[in-house]
């Protein structure tokens, strides 16, 4: 089937009429085949997603007459943590596939007199929800927080979704956007969209602080880095190999990265699987430093989580944290693909750890205030 698909693709102009017709037919047939062969699984999934809608409706009732609520998908961990860190009236909601469920949600928003609905990124069924809310009550203000940057338009899914929300804005179904990176905020403003600037933030006072076990080795952490090329895990491992007495703590680590550490003769204390965030936050407290030299980001949560746990984190020059500060000079990396450069920066960071943490604590006090102001401005009616 794949071979046939590739053959057809070769002869038909992408996004031409014939291509779109064939793609549509292929999609419909694939969907039918999937539904027939996975009937039981689909039923269970439908039930699950409907239950999530019911829970969301219960939550909406708690926010009756509020100025705003924020929908977020609790299974998208980055977006979920970001939303929890910024807003008060939050409503976990997964994909919504059933039209009746969409209607129930829309009715709940209207019946509970919610003035503004914020969508923290867009899941399946959410654009339909937006349209129906506006159709029923055009005075309800709709805002969308777009967590990505233009790099992501390399993906068909993200580009098509972006175009869909841009069209909804042009049709007055969406009133404004929130962006968590200045380049996106400025760019969309320039393109003509009403935009707000936000930053992600973390509050981790509830996480247990653990005592650091004394060691002759320098433990350096790399986390959640094996899922995408952008996370730059192999350069990170090479860099750690160059640091004297270093041990890499990599969670999760996959077979390929493990083989690479063996080739590097790099000592590791890694785990093959994801671990719950709370457990991870306790684990990283044993480290000298964490590194996050990704190639592009928006407002990554992990560096802030690391600092909150008392461990400096080096991060790529691809977000708005610490820009123009002394702290930034210590921890922002500007040559992410160079292991020797990363090694020098790791060593420098370890040498100035106390000063860096002091600078972070001062920065965070100011950042908390700014975040609150940005959120207040965004949720204002």
């Amino acid at each position, binding site marked *: 089937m794949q071979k046939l698909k590739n053959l057809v693709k070769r002869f038909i102009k992408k996004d031409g009429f014939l291509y779109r017709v064939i793609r549509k037919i292929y999609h419909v047939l694939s969907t039918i085949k999937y539904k027939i062969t996975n009937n039981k699984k689909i039923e269970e999934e439908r039930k699950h997603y409907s239950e999530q809608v019911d829970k969301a409706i219960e939550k909406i009732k708690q926010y009756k007459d509020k100025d705003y609520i924020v929908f977020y998908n609790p299974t998208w961990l980055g977006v979920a943590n970001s939303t929890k860190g910024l807003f008060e009236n939050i409503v976990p909601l997964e994909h919504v596939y059933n039209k009746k469920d969409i209607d129930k949600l829309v009715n709940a928003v209207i019946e509970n007199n919610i003035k503004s609905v914020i969508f923290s990124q867009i899941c399946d069924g959410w654009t339909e929800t937006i349209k129906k809310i506006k159709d029923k009550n055009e005075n309800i203000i709709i805002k969308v927080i777009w967590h990505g940057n*233009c790099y992501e338009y390399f993906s068909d899914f993200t580009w098509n979704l972006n175009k869909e929300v841009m069209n909804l804005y042009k049709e007055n179904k969406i009133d404004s956007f929130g962006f968590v990176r200045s380049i996106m905020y400025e760019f969309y403003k320039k393109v003509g969209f009403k935009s707000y600037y936000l930053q992600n933030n973390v509050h981790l006072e509830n996480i247990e602080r653990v005592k650091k076990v004394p060691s002759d080795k320098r433990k350096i952490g790399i986390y959640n880095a094996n899922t995408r090329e952008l996370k730059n895990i192999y350069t990170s491992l090479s860099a750690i190999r160059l640091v004297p007495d270093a041990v890499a703590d990599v969670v999760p680590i996959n077979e390929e990265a493990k083989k690479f550490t063996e080739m590097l003769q790099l000592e590791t204390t890694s785990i093959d699987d994801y671990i719950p965030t709370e457990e991870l936050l306790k684990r990283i407290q044993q480290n000298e430093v964490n590194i996050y030299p990704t190639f*592009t980001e928006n407002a990554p949560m992990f560096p802030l989580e690391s600092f909150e746990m008392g461990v400096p984190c080096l991060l790529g020059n691809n977000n708005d944290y610490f820009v123009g500060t002394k702290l930034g000079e210590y921890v922002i990396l500007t040559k992410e693909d160079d292991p020797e450069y990363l090694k020098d920066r790791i060593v420098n960071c370890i040498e100035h750890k106390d000063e860096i943490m002091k600078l972070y604590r001062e920065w965070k006090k100011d950042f908390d205030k700014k975040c609150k102001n940005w959120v207040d401005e965004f949720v204002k009616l």
Partner: protein
Amino acid sequence: MQEEYVLLYGDKKPEDNICIKNMFSNNQQINLGWTDFDYNKNMKAIDEIVEKGVKQIIFSGLEIGWDKLIRDVKQKYPELKIKVICNTLDSLLYYDYERQNFFNLLELSKDNIIDDIAFLRKGQYEVYKTLGYKCSFLRENYILEDDKKLKIKESNDVIDIGIYPLNYTWDKNIFNQLCIPKYIENSNLNYNEIDERMTDFVNTMDIKATSDKIETIDAKNVQEKVVKNDINIATSFTEYFHTVFWISMEQGIPCIIGNTADFFEKEEDKELEQYLVTLAEDNSIINSKMVKDCIDNKEQIMELYRNWKKEYNKLASKSIEKFLEK
């Protein structure tokens, strides 16, 4: 005295071949196919090279099938020196293809089948030197002869900005680059339309742009494109050969690149580096300011470049000699 050599290159990465052929241009080049890799044909070609008295062969990169070929060549001609120029970086090892070939390369070195690995980035070279591999740091380069210099665009009211990624891959950071002209008044973007998404993007975002597709990637075609612009941009996230940068600069057009090279090491190079190397590859605001700076100071930049390049050519040439002599 360096021994006579032949450089062998494949067809998977034509953008790399532009630089590598220029760096090793005095010698015979044989096209070692990738898409139509033919073991017998290539072995026969190598037999002919050895019969001519060539003492060392250099492979540009290591693609599928080459490791077996190299092992067999070594067995057949134990005295022949075999070296490989590594055409990947740690940042690209996420992909099975790159990683597997890289591991094969290291195995060839461990088994003493190859005599040297040349790395094009200093940081990568330091890692494998530390691990005990026989390796060299080879400085990438591209020298344009005066008679190949084309007529460049004369300044007018429109600022032409060129963005010519030679691959539609994640590392080229394409869409953040396409945002840059939005911040430059009276600008027109000329871009290598390697995917229709690029056109869809500039149209959707209302960026004044002209599709300027490079049909076949070779030096001549890239040269003809870059000279149409006042400035070119190639801010990839990660690179080893900076083909567009070299061709643009050599033709006399400033080109901004990411912080992905080891070009400007001395203190006196810093001024030029600040003009041409962005420290924030995905930041269209910072990079648009750099574009404006480059346009305002074009003459000075090109003067700085010419002075720097004279010295760099010597360094690059020395690194090639050293690699060949090993």
